[in-house]
């Protein structure tokens, strides 16, 4: 999947009018495409755009971000550029590439990237009397608002600054597997059947540990809802958007009554670890459920920890009661995140559990997401097929798990503990008890910056 680079539309618009005129423009376009396909910023370090450093410059008295070594210029239009003439006159040996001006007289000069933006811009201004202005290529940010028709009803995404986070994210979605251990996913005739969860290139079906087969078909609805929050296809003009656009591995551990067990959890964790290892990918496990402490559950969490996997688990809906396991292992194991819920007023909903093990919170009330196309248990409880709203820490956890996957795909060298720390340290504090909110509400923009 091509990466969307910030400011790319601006650069394309600059060269679009004349891209056929010179091979130079085709070369620039080719480079843009290559950069879009290539993993971006796979190691933490200075930000780059088109492989060039992004630097802060003072421009008209303001500090702005610009691409080092790129200068935009505008010539007077009554003068046609002469064949072979380039803008490098004033830049001498600094110039690497020059685009002829477009119909507005605007072009771009590429200099050695080590030349400061101010110096290159200043030099470019000396190109000749027909140059009207020069300026650095400023970095623009577009806020990606998905075209999914129900996106405006997904209040959780603006609440956690997801659109701003998507703008910043330029990771490789194939570097991370998000395993969802739940009641399965919408499947009919052996195939993914929900229009928002049908991408077989990134949604992989694992075991059904309830019926002991290889078709994790959802007969409750909970799993499809959780999967949609985490990873419904975004920008497909259909239904809802999911937070994570990368690989998802579905494992069924909850039955039609939405019950699972410690041994199903252990089997699924072991399976997810093996799958991610085969893929050569990092692993985030989402478990929107839980129950009592168990040595088997503890062994599974330790196994995940030993293999570098992050576990994100719902804190539970005990109406102010204790946090359930495995979420409550968050103090004992550095790879576990306990997720609580908040409502649109950033209050703890009355159903949510609380306790000192709480790590962070995310929206968990009135959450719109996907449900199977066919009749499942939740439909007998009044929920509509295909799309409906649910409440619970179950709905909050996949937002955190998906954010963990986004972070890890951006910075794959991080450990599970470091991903957890990034989520925690960038969370926004909510006034009140840490037992209710932990370190606060997750912030996708801050976490991916």
């Amino acid at each position, binding site marked *: 999947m091509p990466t969307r680079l910030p400011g790319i539309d601006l650069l394309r618009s600059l060269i679009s009018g004349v891209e056929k005129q010179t091979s130079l423009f085709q070369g620039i376009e080719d480079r843009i495409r290559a950069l879009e396909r290539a993993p971006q910023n796979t190691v933490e370090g200075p930000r780059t755009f088109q492989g060039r450093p992004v630097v802060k410059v003072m421009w008209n008295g303001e500090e702005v971000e610009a691409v080092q070594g790129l200068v935009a210029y505008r010539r007077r239009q009554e003068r046609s550029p002469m064949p072979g003439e380039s803008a490098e006159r004033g830049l001498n040996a600094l110039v690497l590439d020059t685009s002829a001006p477009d119909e507005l007289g605007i072009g771009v000069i590429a200099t050695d990237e080590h030349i400061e933006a101010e110096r290159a811009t200043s030099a470019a201004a000396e190109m000749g009397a027909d140059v009207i202005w020069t300026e650095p290529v400023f970095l623009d940010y577009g806020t990606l608002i998905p075209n999914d028709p129900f996106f405006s009803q997904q209040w959780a995404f603006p609440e956690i600054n997801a659109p701003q986070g998507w703008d910043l994210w330029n990771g490789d979605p194939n570097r991370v597997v998000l395993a969802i251990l*739940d*009641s399965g996913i919408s499947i009919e005739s052996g195939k993914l059947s929900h229009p928002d969860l049908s991408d077989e290139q990134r949604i992989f079906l694992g075991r059904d540990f309830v019926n002991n087969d290889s078709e994790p078909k959802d007969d*409750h609805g*909970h799993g499809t*809802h959780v999967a949609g929050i985490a990873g419904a296809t975004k920008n497909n003009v259909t239904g809802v958007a999911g937070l994570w656009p990368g690989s998802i591995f579905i494992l069924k*551990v*909850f*039955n039609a009554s*939405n*019950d*699972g*067990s*410690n*041994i*199903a*959890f*252990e*089997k699924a964790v*072991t399976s997810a670890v093996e799958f991610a290892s085969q893929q050569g990918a990092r692993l985030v496990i989402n478990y*929107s*459920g*839980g*129950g*009592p*402490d*168990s*040595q*088997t*559950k503890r*062994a*599974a969490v330790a*196994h995940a920890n030993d293999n570098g996997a992050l576990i994100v688990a*719902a*804190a*539970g*809906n005990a109406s102010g*009661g*204790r946090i*359930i396991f495995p979420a409550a292992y968050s103090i004992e194991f550095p790879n576990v995140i306990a997720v609580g819920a908040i409502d649109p007023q950033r209050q703890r909903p009355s*159903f949510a559990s609380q306790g000192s093990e709480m790590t962070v919170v995310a929206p968990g009330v009135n959450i719109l997401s996907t449900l199977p196309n066919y009749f499942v248990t939740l439909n007998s409880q009044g929920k509509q097929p295909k799309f409906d709203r*649910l*409440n*619970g*820490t*179950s*709905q909050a*956890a996949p937002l955190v798990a998906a954010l963990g996957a986004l972070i890890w795909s951006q910075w794959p060298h991080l450990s599970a503990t470091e991903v957890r720390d990034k989520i925690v340290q960038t969370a926004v504090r909510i006034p009140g008890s840490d037992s209710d909110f932990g370190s606060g509400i997750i912030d996708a923009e801050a976490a991916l910056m």
Partner: protein
Amino acid sequence: MRAGDAEDSSNEARYSSNKLIVRLKSEHRRDSGALSEVLSWLPQDARCESEFDELGIAVITLPDGADPVQIAREIEQHEIVEYAEPEFLDSGANK
């Protein structure tokens, strides 16, 4: 999955009434005769549902009327066993 109820020290825990989970100590996980040995301690109709996996954990199906909590306590007295416990039940966390 049949559910029973039991009290642990903190919360009420639900568990399957006919399942027992056994984990071997690490030094015994490669013992080829370990499963037979474990089954020999159990009621005659107990059978293995899943053999010891890579974490050294096996699931045993118990006959009707057996008490997995009591059997787990007894099994844990054996030298090769790290722990034994019932199949505790979890639930999805939606309201």
